[in-house]
């Protein structure tokens, strides 16, 4: 029942085209992104994203910050996956310096990353409901997210830009209540995913608005470099945690959430499923984690990055984040290049939204789950 209006059809021709600005300030562009939309009536003929409103020059700043100092900037890329960004940077520095990370630190890294993934997907779910017009899921999602934030605050000290995963391990050992709190959270949250399903997934209005809308074909997705749940909803089984494993992921068993249709509904279901898988990963990691031990390898006071090129990739909540580091023997890097998952995801967006309606722009962008500071860096 959901089909795009063919843009060459006579219906579209009878209207005059006009441009509308979903401007940098908009309730639903998830950040400061300007979309210039060409419309014929209510049908979208084309979308042109204009980004750069949040450009802070993070990559350039990387050339003036030492390895330890750059960590706090990576937190601010895709701030909803802060731990994973920190991990990417820590990995690339450890690769450059040849540092081995203690085992307990690796497990803590995994647990923190998966908690961040859950927290990010919770926020995405709430905002998805809000973009569709249901205001209540937003508050339910934030209620649950507070529990994750409390866990973070007890161990890492802050709730959003944690700066906890540093080159060498983690900043300090987990709080005494960490394991108890995390297990309590997993117990608390697992039935709530079913509540989320009851509120939004079971709703016929949500289904009608997302099934069949803005289909992303797998070949198109691969050619644009889309990664993350957006790609896995189109049927392509690519997850950095499985394809290029890092940390202790090889020791943890979980399933990749996959769907084949590639429409907004598939992207929605894939993210809900990822939350369930993250719960599994965290409980395994908690079971396998060594109960005590060092959490930080000793690094020299001045970290000189040996000449060479180093690459690390992690799976953030939105896709594959890769950091490419070029060192030349000095403490400051020669070049830091960040491959941002949201940038590639956004680039696929204009191709799939033709023929749909204004309301679908908002819905589809919401299922792409973009964080604009990551696009602009």
């Amino acid at each position, binding site marked *: 029942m959901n089909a795009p209006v063919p843009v060459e059809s006579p219906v579209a021709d009878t209207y005059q085209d006009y441009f509308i600005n979903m401007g940098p300030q908009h309730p639903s562009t998830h950040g400061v992104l300007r979309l210039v939309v060409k419309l014929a009536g209510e049908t979208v003929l084309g979308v042109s994203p204009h980004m750069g409103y949040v450009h802070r020059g993070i990559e350039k700043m990387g050339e003036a910050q030492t390895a330890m*100092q750059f960590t706090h900037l990576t937190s601010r890329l895709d701030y909803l996956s802060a731990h994973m960004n920190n991990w990417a940077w820590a990995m690339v520095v450890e690769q450059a310096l040849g540092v081995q990370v203690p085992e307990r630190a690796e497990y803590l890294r995994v647990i923190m990353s998966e908690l961040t993934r859950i927290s990010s997907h919770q926020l995405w779910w709430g905002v998805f409901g809000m973009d569709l017009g249901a205001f209540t899921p937003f508050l339910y999602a934030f209620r649950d997210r507070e529990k994750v934030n409390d866990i973070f605050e007890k161990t890492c000290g802050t709730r959003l*830009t944690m700066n906890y995963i540093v080159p060498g391990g983690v900043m300090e050992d987990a709080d005494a209540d960490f394991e108890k709190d995390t297990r309590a959270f997993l117990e608390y949250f697992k039935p709530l995913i079913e509540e989320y399903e009851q509120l939004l997934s079971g709703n*016929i209005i949500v289904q009608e608005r997302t099934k069949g809308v803005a289909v992303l074909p797998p070949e198109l997705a691969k050619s644009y470099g889309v990664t993350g749940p957006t790609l896995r909803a189109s049927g392509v089984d690519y997850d950095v945690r499985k394809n290029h494993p890092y940390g202790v992921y090889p020791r943890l068993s979980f399933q990749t959430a996959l769907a084949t249709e590639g429409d907004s509904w598939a992207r929605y279901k894939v993210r809900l499923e990822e939350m369930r898988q993250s719960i599994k990963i965290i409980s395994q990691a908690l079971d396998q984690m060594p109960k005590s031990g060092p959490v930080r390898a000793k*690094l020299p006071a001045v970290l000189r990055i040996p000449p060479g090129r180093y690459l690390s990739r992690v799976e953030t909540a939105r896709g594959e984040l890769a950091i490419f580091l070029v060192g030349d023997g000095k403490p400051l890097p020669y070049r830091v290049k960040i491959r941002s998952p949201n940038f590639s995801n956004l680039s696929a967006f204009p191709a799939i939204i033709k023929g749909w309606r204004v309301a679908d722009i908002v819905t589809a962008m919401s299922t792409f789950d973009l964080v604009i500071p990551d696009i602009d860096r």
Partner: protein
Amino acid sequence: MKEILKKTFEGLRGLLSGMALTFRYLVHPDKVITQQYPENRAQLKLPPRARSRIELIKDEQNGVYRCTACGLCVRACPNNSIEVIRDRDPVTQKAKLNKFIYHFERCTICGLCVDACRSEALRMGQQFETAVYDSAQLTIILNKDSKPAGEEPASERKTASTPSETEAAPRPPSVSAAAIQPTPAPSSPAA
């Protein structure tokens, strides 16, 4: 026709079940999660590791700041939020702290300064109500004996995170000695 009826009933059932969920929260007012801030300041206890504006730690015995003006924190800070002005003792040539200037408007509360300090002289404070009306008040001299310039004295502030409270129980420095011991086999400190 059967399809339409089936879809109607399925749709209605989904809608009603969603309504039942919100209704359940409506009739359970005990599940409300709103906190009435600022009236609940007395109950508002931040976890010990919660980070905010940094503070200098005084030695308990002699009430002197532990800071030796070595400047490691200045070098560790990513964006020059700390300035250390030192005096040199003319006799022993040892450095002594004159002023510890903290530019709070630049600080990102990353904690690297506390991490770098070797004399355990810095800690992350817990005072989160740090908004001011005049940006000059954000440049703080931390080794003034009581409070930063321009702020009301602590005795008039009834917050859970008054400096006096946090100073009473000095928080252990963030990097414990145990954490940076060389690990038995795997670790190999970089050249």
